């Protein structure tokens, strides 16, 4: 049977189940798969974390290097987020330049980190206009079984929490010190399956869905980023509903940032 035909049959089945409030893996509409955070997975990085949500795995590594502030923000350091959807992680990825999907993951993760003021960039400035830290957040998708955005942000923030500024190594200060993390954004992604909106979609549920929506919340009760993706639509009431659910899931997952599982 061709891939297209089996995908079609699976989609019908997923939608039929969703109409009864059921899911293929037995979860309820508002249940996440098991979430685990393993900080410090890579010792060559200045901070790192391997995060699994179900069978999805993302490894995030932080690298800090001295560089130059941007001319328009002379008093701030630089933070860049990059997500690599490497072909190792899924039969659907092919080698080559970043695909739109990878760019979307990078940008949505970057936006949440930036908007939540996760890291105070002015604290990364060494000499205004001349020298500042450049903080690279690289997310490496190892296994793609759906919901990359939530997994990647949880990995990125956990890696930031785990990070040390290598000030001694670069001769900027006498000792290395922990990176200051001020806020803790958590992203929460939902997809529409018919009239049901389910959280933490699997790869097959994403493919079967009529629209995806991601809400990032922080620990002081702010919504800091949102992204609607894929083909489909949500009503304002749907959006209010997912925001409420996102706060609840965010609070639960925030306890994992220093390692652990729920």
């Amino acid at each position, binding site marked *: 049977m061709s891939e297209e035909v089996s995908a079609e049959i699976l989609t019908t089945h997923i939608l039929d189940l969703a109409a009864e409030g059921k899911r293929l893996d037995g979860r309820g509409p508002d249940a996440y798969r098991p979430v685990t955070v393993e900080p410090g997975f890579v010792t060559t990085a200045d901070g790192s974390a391997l995060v699994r949500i179900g069978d999805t795995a993302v490894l995030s*590594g932080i690298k800090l290097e001295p560089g130059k502030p941007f001319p328009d923000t002379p008093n701030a350091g630089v933070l860049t987020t990059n997500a690599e959807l490497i*072909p*190792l992680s899924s039969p659907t990825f092919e*080698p080559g330049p970043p695909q739109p999907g990878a760019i979307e993951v990078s940008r949505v993760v970057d936006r949440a980190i930036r908007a939540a003021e996760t890291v105070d960039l002015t604290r990364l400035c060494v000499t205004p206009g001349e020298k500042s830290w450049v903080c690279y957040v*690289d997310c490496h998708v190892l296994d793609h*079984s759906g919901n990359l955005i939530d997994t990647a942000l949880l990995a990125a923030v956990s890696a930031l929490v785990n990070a040390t500024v290598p000030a001694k190594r670069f001769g900027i200060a006498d000792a290395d010190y922990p990176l200051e993390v001020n806020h803790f954004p958590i992203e929460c992604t939902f997809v529409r399956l018919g009239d049901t909106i389910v959280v933490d979609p699997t790869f097959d549920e994403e493919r079967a869905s009529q629209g995806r929506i991601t809400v990032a919340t922080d620990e002081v009760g702010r919504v800091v980023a949102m992204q609607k993706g894929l083909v489909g639509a949500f009503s304002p009431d749907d959006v209010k509903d997912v925001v409420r659910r996102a706060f609840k899931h965010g609070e639960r997952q925030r306890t994992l940032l220093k390692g652990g599982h729920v």
Partner: protein
Amino acid sequence: MGSVGAKEIPVLLSPEGLRIDGRRLDELRPITIHVGALKNADGSAFVEWGANKVMAAVYGPREVHPRHLQQNNKAVIQCKYNMAAFAVDERKRPGLDRRSQEISKVIGEAFESVVFAEEYPRTSIDIYIEVLQANAGTRCAGLVAASLALADAGIPMVDLLPAVAVGKVAGKIALDLKKEEDNFGEADLPMALVPQSGRLVLLQMEGHMTEDELAASLELGVQGCREIYEKMKAALRERYALGAGGPA
């Protein structure tokens, strides 16, 4: 791969003949292997080798992309070796570079020498090697991981491919160099062995060695490969032991 902090040459060999991490000259670093570490791949393996962490995945036999590479009499074997940006001390720019492309080529060719590619005409067997943490010897660790991923994917092969690098440290031939030894050592000679035939399907060398040193290195490398071969077989047996649940 120069480390920012390392400015002076460390003592690589103690008067007792022990290396920087306390190993003897003919001793491997600790190796742990997890076959079937990934859900999506047809075959996969995660190898921790000293301070190296390497993941390999195999997809296929499947349709060939790009199409023009398709061969009518056998499968094409496409290998991609890649290093994560955070895998080394100084951040590596993500993406393909000349080093990765060369390593991908020689590893791919090593596997072409042992895989029964003619069993799967007009298909592609795709091998992906991701170095997540690097500490010298990543191509050998990657090759070992990929070989096990191929076996995990059920691809018929002549044999598994153990691999190891031999080098020269403080004038002595040493097995399986770690980073400091590689940075400050005098030679590096990675190899991959077909244990059944005793032949090498990957061999590279950089540095200075005399003819006698080279002969000794080959002997030490083959011995190291045979040791790794036993670990590889044990890891596969563990994965496919009765009651272990078999492949995911």
